[in-house]
């Protein structure tokens, strides 16, 4: 299958995603510059991590106006798969493709560390190979990962099972100690109602190889590939 990786000015994890898809999972991958006016034929789009436009003003605020975003909206509307990782998630929020906002971490510091996530929904194209309630270890690296939404939105997310990952302790318990950034309800990843757009703060592309000491991230990519098989 074919992945398209969107490159915004300031994207940092574009090459990392490419590497995992191409060399580890042996799928096709190509970069798409944010100024393009159309999308090549692809099955899944990735909005990678980084600091698009320096995260100036608010992360994702400027990127949401890139010319390619119009095409991305259409792609989403037509059911195409879109995975937003870290800054990619922030862009999806700013663009309104997912609900809520990211605020600054409650520590007011950038945090780079390995955390644990509990899989809350394995009936999405991004998680169908995972175990419901299973615990995954993944790296995070962000300054603004403190997810916030108003009550109504949060209720909707819950009712529609749109919350896909929550920060948890090693044993799967959802605790405040295990929450690295203050995110509402320990939320670390959500999808849209239609299940074809997923945003997550952790970086699955950073933990998909044995040499890096952790392969828990593979399940995301393998799920995507499976849903196309």
């Amino acid at each position: 299958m074919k992945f398209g990786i969107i490159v915004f000015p300031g994207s940092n994890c574009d090459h990392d995603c490419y590497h995992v898809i191409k060399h580890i999972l042996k799928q096709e991958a190509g970069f798409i510059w944010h100024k393009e006016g159309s999308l090549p034929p692809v099955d899944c789009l990735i909005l990678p991590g980084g600091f698009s436009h320096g995260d100036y003003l608010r992360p994702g605020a400027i990127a949401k106006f890139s010319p390619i975003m119009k095409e991305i909206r259409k792609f989403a509307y037509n059911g195409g798969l879109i995975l937003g990782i870290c800054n990619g998630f922030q862009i999806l929020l700013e663009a309104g493709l997912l609900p809520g906002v990211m605020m600054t971490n409650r520590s007011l510091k950038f945090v780079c560390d390995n955390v644990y996530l509990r899989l809350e929904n394995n009936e999405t194209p991004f998680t169908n190979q995972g175990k419901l309630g299973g615990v995954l270890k993944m790296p995070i690296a962000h300054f603004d990962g403190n997810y916030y939404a108003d009550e109504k939105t949060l209720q909707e997310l819950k009712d529609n099972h749109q919350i896909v990952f929550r920060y948890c302790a090693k044993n799967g318990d959802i605790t405040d100690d295990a929450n690295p950034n203050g995110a509402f309800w320990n939320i670390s990843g959500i999808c849209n109602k239609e299940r074809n757009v997923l945003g997550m703060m952790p970086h699955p592309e950073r933990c998909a190889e044995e040499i890096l000491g952790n392969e828990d991230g593979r399940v995301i990519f393998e799920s995507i590939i499976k849903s196309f098989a």
Partner: protein
Amino acid sequence: MGARPIASLNSLRFGSFDHPKTRYLLNGVVGGIAGYGNCIGVPTVGGETYFNKCYNGNILVNVFSLGLVKKERIFKGVACGAGNPVIYVGSKTGRDGIHGATMASEEFDEKSGERRPTVQVGDPFTEKLLLEACLEVMSRDCIVGIQDMGAAGLTCSSCEMASRGGTGIEIDLSKVPRREVGMTPYELMLSESQERMLLVVKKGYEKEVEEVFKKWDLDVSVVGSVTDDGLLRVMNDGVMVAEIPARALSEESPVYLRPKERPEYLSMTQRFSIDNLPEPTEYAEIFLKLLGSPNIAGKGWVYRQYDHMVRTNTVVYPGSDAAVIRIKGTNKGIAMTVDCNSRYCYLDPYIGGMIAVAEAARNLVCSGAKPLAITDCLNFGNPEKPGIMWQFEQATNGISDACKRLNTPVVGGNVSFYNETQGEGIYPTPTVAMVGIIPDINLHQTQWFKDDGDVIVMLGKSYEELGGSEYLAVVHGIEEGMPPGIELDLEIAVQNACLEVIQKGIIKSAHDCSEGGIAIALAECCFSGPKFNRGAKVTISENIRGDCLLFGESQSRIIVSLDKGNLDHFKEIAEKNKAPFKIIGRVGGERLVINELINCPVEVLKQRWKMAIKERV
């Protein structure tokens, strides 16, 4: 140079935590490095963080960045070929940092605040774009030379490029993109605005280069051309405002031969003898105190703020002796570290300089890397003082002698003088960054114990040395004595043995003994692993005082652990390399036990070590 930066290290020196500004500065500097480094997508994979009152008035921030380049695609800062266009790219020019370079070479006093130039505010986003755009034009066949605009801005970059090429450059200032109105030629030539580069490209390729920089939304402007008269000529609106031989500003700079003299404090500090020091009775308490000393404590609070994983090459995170990254598409790895114990350098700059190199190499070897080369950042006080000049000469001699023996060329570096405030200088701080290569990345090594039952062995020898130790400073408040001795033959024997046993896959961990001695090194072996703690029972028979045995900082020592079954093979290799060693204990249990002196639960030690910095900030 054409290299893509793949990893950074940082060496930070702050004043003591008692000083009112330390907390603020620590927060600000670490936040600043994080803000910039993370944004440009270069992982900060390691570093060092020291606290000493000698830095109360002058903190030090040294950063090292490593890049990867194909050897047939290296670019230089050179201007060749008369008629080739000179192109300015990056950010616009403002009045930032004019006279920044000269101010950096002044002592600070009460009046410095007023003379402060407009500080440069970094724009990491533009830097990231500039980096990508430069790499993109470099992948084509149009660049003759390229150089960044640093200290003294356009003046320095143009003169150096012309001088290296044996050419001249003519610049038309009216073409320089500017951020402010009314800037004079003087200001334009000396501005230190960040995120700018000067390019010389092959004639006819102007359009192609322009298109790349426009794609990345950067300013780009042909500001002049290469000439063959050896002159830097500056034009402004058709009027010549400066003309000077380029070499005069770059190559023919004056050489300072300054008087030097061994400073007086040394006769006082070197008089110290441990015979007058009472031997402690309660070791557990001292041990905990040392683990909580900011210089020894875990630096997680710092490196959690740095993205140390971006680019997915980081195989060993910060927290081991050296950081290790893999090189995609090969089986190789690269290890890197920065080191300098400035207290040693203060007490004997020659030995201190030597130890900085030896320790850096040892850290690399512990990770399974063969040391390749160093670069240094020499931070000193006012060189017009003979004592400082002497320190400078001694320290560089020490570095030079160690590098010759260890076969690690000094391929670059940086000098920072006048680190003084109101006459008080910092300790001489020649920071050494060293890079090594791991031929097979699967055979890299880490510092923490792996399995219960493994044998613990110490490579090297312990002496009755306490001078300049962290123990002496933290527990007794004394920064005196001679730093530990260093014998390069022994150092090399130990390092060769260690490297060989790692490369043959017969040991499971290797950790260098540094600040805090064997006791601290063993504790780190027990609790620094990312997954679990390990206990250890250790018996060291040395005929030396308890405090020297536990906390002395004798050089050239490495603690390794291995499966009992490999012991014979290990001995054989150590003996072949003439490296002394001693079997000192076993991994296992939940406590760290050393002789009759220390017996503590590992988790307690770890908490103390882990929380110490966090609690202070």
